[in-house]
């Protein structure tokens, strides 16, 4: 098992280098001049543009630019903001806890709603609970988060005054953003749990259990659920990554502090080093989450554990 963990960790490190290359390619290889996207050419003189080009090292050949970039990023030097010259990485790290809390809270909401409704939906297939759960799932994946967030602000902040509409101080400011993001995740988890549960229920071992006269309750919750939840772990892992990306919109809607908000502000200000830094930072988190999901499989699924031990 240790060997599996080591192999997957090494492959994740390679993936991180891959994503680093991708981020470089996006900002330096796509058509368009990164310098002109940072400063307005109608106000800047050709000398100013050239100076910035030299300052950013963009006058160097491609391979030298990439080498410098790779070395800097792997050293943890994400560069400085074009707007206020603040170092990018400390800025990201200072704002990350708020985003992490939001992502984890949303994931909890998504898992609780998703697993409960997904199971009920499969157990009462074609019943009214199934219809309700499928509708919730369908709405969850169809509503834009910036709209559902605004609706929640309208109802619970402006009309009822129960929760603050913006800010990041205290738990009360976390409720609405976490629900907004959690509903989307719940939509995916409901569909996955239901699908997985129904698939397991059609397996031969369930027929055997029924033939043995085991009660429906025990079959559903002891045997089927344990097997059905294994693929759900992957979906939840992927959802955490999507939620991290989703914080860009949510933190903007709720004016919350966090790396998503930094990214949205940096996009508006054309602050490329910050945009690049946040995208790469999120990609690393995404890779780490997927690695943890992979490793958790070896603990959750005895078949994988045994096959990795036998190797």
């Amino acid at each position: 098992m240790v060997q599996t963990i080591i192999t997957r960790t090494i492959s994740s490190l390679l993936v991180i280098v891959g994503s680093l290359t991708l981020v470089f390619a996006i900002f330096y290889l796509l058509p368009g001049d990164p310098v002109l996207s940072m400063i307005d050419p109608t106000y800047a003189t050709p000398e100013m543009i050239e100076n910035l080009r030299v300052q950013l090292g963009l006058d160097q050949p491609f391979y030298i630019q990439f080498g410098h970039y790779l070395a800097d990023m792997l050293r943890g030097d994400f560069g400085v903001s074009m707007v206020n010259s603040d170092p990018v990485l400390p800025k990201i790290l200072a704002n990350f806890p708020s985003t992490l809390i939001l992502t984890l809270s949303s994931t909890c909401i998504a898992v609780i709603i998703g697993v409960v409704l997904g199971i009920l939906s499969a157990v009462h297939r074609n019943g009214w609970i199934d219809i309700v759960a499928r509708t919730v799932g369908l709405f969850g994946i169809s509503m834009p988060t910036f709209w559902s967030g605004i609706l929640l602000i309208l109802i619970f902040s402006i009309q009822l005054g129960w929760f603050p509409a913006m800010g990041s101080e205290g738990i009360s400011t976390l409720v609405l953003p976490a629900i907004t993001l959690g509903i989307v995740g719940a939509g995916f988890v409901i569909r996955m749990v239901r699908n997985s549960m129904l698939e397991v229920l059609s397996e031969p071992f369930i027929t055997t259990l029924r033939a043995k006269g085991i009660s429906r309750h025990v079959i559903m919750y002891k045997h089927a659920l344990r097997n059905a939840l294994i693929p759900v772990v992957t979906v939840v892992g992927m959802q955490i990554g999507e939620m991290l990306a989703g914080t860009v919109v949510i933190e903007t809607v709720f004016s919350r502090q966090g790396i998503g908000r930094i990214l949205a502000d940096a996009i508006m200000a054309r602050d490329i080093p910050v945009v690049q830094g946040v995208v790469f930072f999120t990609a690393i988190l995404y890779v780490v989450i997927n690695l943890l999901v992979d490793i958790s499989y070896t603990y959750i699924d005895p078949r994988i554990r045994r096959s990795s031990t036998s190797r």
Partner: protein
Amino acid sequence: MKQATPTLTTDWQNESSSTVRSKKLSWQATTTRYMWYIALALIAFIVLCALVPQWIAPYSPVDMVADRILQAPNAINWLGTDYFGRDIFSLVVYGARDSLLIGFSSVVIGILVGVLLGTVAGYIGGILDTIVMRFIDILMTIPGVLLALAIAAALGPGLLNIIIAISVSAIPGYARVMRGQMVSLGSRGYVEASRSLGASGLRIVWKHILPNAVSPILVMGTLGLGTAILTGAGLSFLGLGVIHEIPDWGALLSQGRGYLTVAWWICTFPGLAITVFVLAINIIGDDLRDRLDPQSSYL
């Protein structure tokens, strides 16, 4: 002494419960069919709005009426007016054009490029397969929304740029599915038979593999359309969208945010339009998957 024969029948298998179940199934089938018709009608209406908005919108979206600023929904302006006195219903109808253009174009480009990459990788194999698939793997290291956001941020605001950004983020999914299809269909008996009869590689791909690989791509494309429209609206909401006088749904919603406390309708209706369209697309997509790709269907 006669022993009691053990029975496999449980309360969830007996005659009466199977009758109840078949009734439930028929009720569900009817509901699903009606939902499908409603979804199709909604999509048709919204596509019509995008194609011929002047037939549906009661006013021009650029008409600013000074004495009708921030009017709540009423008999004249069904969905109210904005801070320039523009009719929200007309803005939503006209806004469909860019929103749908972004969604449809991104999906079509994503499918074309993804299918091409997947076909080349799966058919030729070897080193080319490895290169293409590692490139796809790298594209997948960043969550789709974030990838689209990064590309749009690098290219700057604009309709074409937003379409490119969403297309690139959609390519990996189609390429992987297509490659899987190429590998699995390539070893089928009818492909082997065609090959032994001397058919060229291009003919085998065009005549035998692509027609059989259409179903999963079509299902994925339909469900991907909903995602593309949501992503496009999200990018517009963040200020990376189309810059002209008729805003798309995402930009319209973003503009209304500042007036949330005094005019709830500016944000509510464009968001409702996005939700209704994506919901309808997802209903059709789920149904298509059930019909065309039963193995991965939403059971």
